């Protein structure tokens, strides 16, 4: 019924339309809005900034004034706000739900870390200001260094590497410098089959050949094969521990001894440090160098791919080879050694300036919040959560290895055998359920790998819901409901994307439809 203004006063009985036949004129679907590229919205005249006027003056550009149009599209501020807000809403994120990417440690990113990193005294300082004006910044570096050395039980640290892979490079450079110093020219680095791609790639950058060590049936490094591979030409082993199957290398001490026995070094990939932080000190295991992904264990945000930070702790043997810069305690407070000193063994410099200060602040805030008691809890809860997921799924999915795992659990695709459903399909169906898929097809040691790392940030309820969804999907797969998987995702902003097309005919940038005026 309508009142006299035409307002409905009773509840209508909703009629129904099939969603299938439903296309809106705008292309939007309620709150799910499509969005064009900035180049299709804005133009070279529009701008979202106001700037002081510039009067006439004689330029000193040496005759190199840029003439032609660059082609940059501008948006007014409200348009830009809306554009990027809409884009953001097409993303999945930790803030939205469980993000079980194995090997990535997608944990809660506390906002107090963001807040303190933005204090003007920490965020708005220049790397080359006089050292007297940045004593607090050096203190942050020094404190973080102390925490990391204490947690790993290692005597030295290089703070400048910018991510895990950069840390690997730093560690291997130190190893090679140590060998060079001994006058030894070894050529091989050992790495297990299950190693992350950055390990072999890094070894190559240092001029090493990589020899792959197979895994045993139970997911560990094959100790016998490893020992066979050792020899005078082996510079180092790169071992991830806990490894990428989510298992602690129980022979780690023996491995360390074996590599040390032949005069090589033990590089530990610390990407999985979350499982053991506060519980085990890598220094006690014979490690010579290990990078720590601050963006994994210590919660600095992944930011859609970075930035991260990869400080590297070093053993006594490698400490002299650490790169510049590093903080020292001088007479008037902290000082920074920025230059290779005469006769120094330092292998060089990893980056301009002093590393990822912004990440250091966040990581230190995370550590201080937890304290030494809380960090051990982090390890325990992360391991507990992973084991709970494994225990709750292994009757219906195929766990690759028996027994307790560390912070992540590995399944393979045997449970899908005969269903015609691949790991990828299974993963894409998880998207419809509202979850980011786990890591797939890594590590390479099992077929159709599914590596699940819940992290300590998940509640039991959250895990139970996740387990419920996975069990449901497994049941559907086993019931032969193939389309649920092969067509997935159905409910995401986009359907499955054609990656082959993207690689075959790469379109890596927008080009102005008719002719492109920007290259002068």
């Amino acid at each position, binding site marked *: 019924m309508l009142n006299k203004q035409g307002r409905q006063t009773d509840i209508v009985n909703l009629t129904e339309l099939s969603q299938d036949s439903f296309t809106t004129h705008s292309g939007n679907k309620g709150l799910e809005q499509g969005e064009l590229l900035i180049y299709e919205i804005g133009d070279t005249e529009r701008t979202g900034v106001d700037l002081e006027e510039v009067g006439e003056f004689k330029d000193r550009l040496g005759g190199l004034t840029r003439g032609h149009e660059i082609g940059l599209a501008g948006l007014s501020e409200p348009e*830009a706000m809306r554009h990027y807000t809409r884009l953001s809403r097409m993303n999945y994120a930790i803030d939205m739900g469980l993000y079980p990417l194995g090997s990535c440690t997608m944990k809660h990113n506390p906002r107090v870390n963001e807040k303190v990193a933005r204090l003007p005294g920490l965020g708005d300082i220049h790397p080359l200001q006089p050292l007297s004006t940045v004593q607090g910044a050096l203190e942050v570096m020094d404190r973080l260094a102390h925490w990391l050395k204490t947690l790993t039980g290692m005597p030295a640290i290089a703070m400048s590497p910018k991510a895990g892979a950069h840390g690997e490079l730093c560690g291997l450079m130190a190893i090679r410098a140590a060998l060079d110093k001994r006058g030894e020219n070894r050529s091989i680095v050992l790495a297990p089959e299950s190693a992350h791609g950055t390990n072999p790639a890094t070894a190559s950058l240092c001029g090493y050949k990589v020899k792959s060590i197979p895994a045993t049936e139970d997911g560990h490094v094959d100790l016998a094969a490893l020992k066979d591979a050792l020899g005078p030409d082996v510079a180092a082993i790169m071992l991830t521990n806990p490894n990428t199957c989510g298992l602690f290398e129980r022979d780690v001490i023996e491995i360390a001894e074996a590599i040390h026995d032949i005069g090589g070094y033990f590089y530990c990939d610390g990407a999985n440090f979350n499982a053991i932080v506060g519980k085990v000190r890598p220094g006690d295991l014979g490690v010579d160098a290990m990078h720590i992904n601050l963006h994994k264990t210590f919660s600095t945000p992944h930011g859609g791919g970075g930035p991260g930070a990869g400080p590297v702790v070093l053993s006594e043997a490698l400490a002299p080879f650490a790169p510049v810069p590093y903080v020292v305690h001088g007479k008037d407070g902290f000082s920074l050694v920025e230059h290779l000193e005469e006769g120094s063994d330092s292998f060089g410099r990893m980056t301009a300036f002093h590393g990822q200060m912004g990440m250091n602040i966040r990581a230190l805030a995370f550590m201080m919040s937890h304290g030494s008691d809380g960090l051990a809890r982090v390890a325990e809860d992360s391991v507990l959560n992973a084991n709970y997921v494994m225990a709750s799924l292994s009757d219906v999915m195929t766990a690759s290895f028996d027994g307790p795992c560390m912070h992540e659990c590995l399944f393979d695709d045997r449970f899908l055998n005969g269903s015609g459903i691949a790991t990828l399909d299974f993963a894409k169906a998880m998207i419809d359920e509202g979850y980011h898929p786990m890591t797939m097809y890594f590590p390479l040691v099992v077929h159709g790998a599914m590596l699940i790392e819940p992290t300590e940030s998940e509640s039991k309820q959250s895990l139970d819901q996740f387990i419920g969804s996975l069990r449901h999907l497994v049941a559907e797969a086993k019931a032969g409901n193939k389309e649920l998987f092969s067509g997935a995702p159905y409910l995401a902003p986009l359907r499955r994307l054609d990656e082959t097309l993207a690689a075959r005919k790469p379109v890596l940038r927008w080009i102005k439809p008719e002719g492109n005026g920007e290259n002068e």
Partner: protein
Amino acid sequence: MRYLPLSHDDRSQMLDKIGVSHIDDLFRDVPKSALLKKPVDLPSHMSEMQVDRNFRHMAEKNIPAGSHPFFCGAGAYRHYVPSTVDYMIQRGEFLTAYTPYQPEISQGTLQALFEFQTQVAQITGMEVANASMYDGSTACGEAVLMARRATRKKKSILSGTLHPQYIEVVKTATKYTDDIAVVNAIDTYSVDTLIDQIDDDTNCVVVQYPDFFGNLQDYSKLADALHAKKALLVVVVTEIVSLGAVRSPGSMGADIVVGEGQSIGNGLSFGGPYVGLFATRQKLVRTMPGRVCGETVDGDGKRGYVLTLSTREQHIRREKATSNICTNAGLCTLAFTIHMTLLGEKGFRHLARLNHSKAVKLADKLSTLDGVEVLNDSFFNEFTVSLPIDATEAIENMTAKQILGGVPLSRLYPNDASLKNQMLVAVTETVTEEDMDRLVSELKELINA
């Protein structure tokens, strides 16, 4: 602990389900001797308020750039970043997402990367760009490695007017793969000296633009000489705002352009995180390092974006990868893109012109001082000043008077006594005329003292 959702009850129920009785049973693969019996010797947990206080306390020991007249540059520049940028990158959907490996639920990050790549290509005047490197210096190292891969030749020549820390980074990164020759800065003011060094083994020459001392040079002739020898021109830009005012490296024939993108969208942050820009020609794209985002279609034929050409990358190609980079500068990239989108062509050019005009003004003012000389013929927003007194001391003294007056060259060349009276002075839009006058009068006083 506020970040840990499991309760005591949850924990015991979960242990039950797993079938063990104590959490340490899950750590049974750890050698007994290595499992810690008590917490490591570090402080216990803290309330958020205490954490906040601790950092405020450390922050107060620093002098923020924004609190004083500020003239430091040398590869990191203080620009005003619109508030929109920082608000937007803090949206959880951007901040707390991983690398966009699942494109169906990562279109936000991916489309922004596609826009970023386009912007970088346009600004540098190149055909394609990647999705970022760690920073300008590591991008520079990667460029040299790429030149070797692309040309299969071993010798790289670096101009001495390249940022000295970049030179060190390149030398370190290529230590075991490349031969590096550095040409004295002083000799590079004529491009011919560089050209003379090129031989059949040369894979690239690396030059900076504007160079470390602020000078601008046309590198077209160098490019021609390199191309004649099937070698590449690598141009490094540490102040990306300059490209709103001066000709693009692409227009001079650069094959690879790398840059530090910090100036756009990103704060000083004591040197990091920053954002490495990497652009090249289409035909070299398969030897390019780093992630790249490309356009494609979804199952319904709708346009979408994915990470692509990943067969160059470590996670697929392992030891044969073009680089070991994995995590890059994601969020800094986003900040760059949003800021650049706000600027647009008009704003970017206006910003560059404003920087340049202020720099010219300060150079003119400084030149009026007795014994002070601006050493540059040309420059963008930074130039080298020679003082009649020690530059490091002058800067220290100005600090006491609340002025951050620039970067003394001896901070970067501690062993070159000829540079000890010289400093780099950068002038961005954040510098007011009053700031300039304070610098000038303070310097005057120091000189006359």
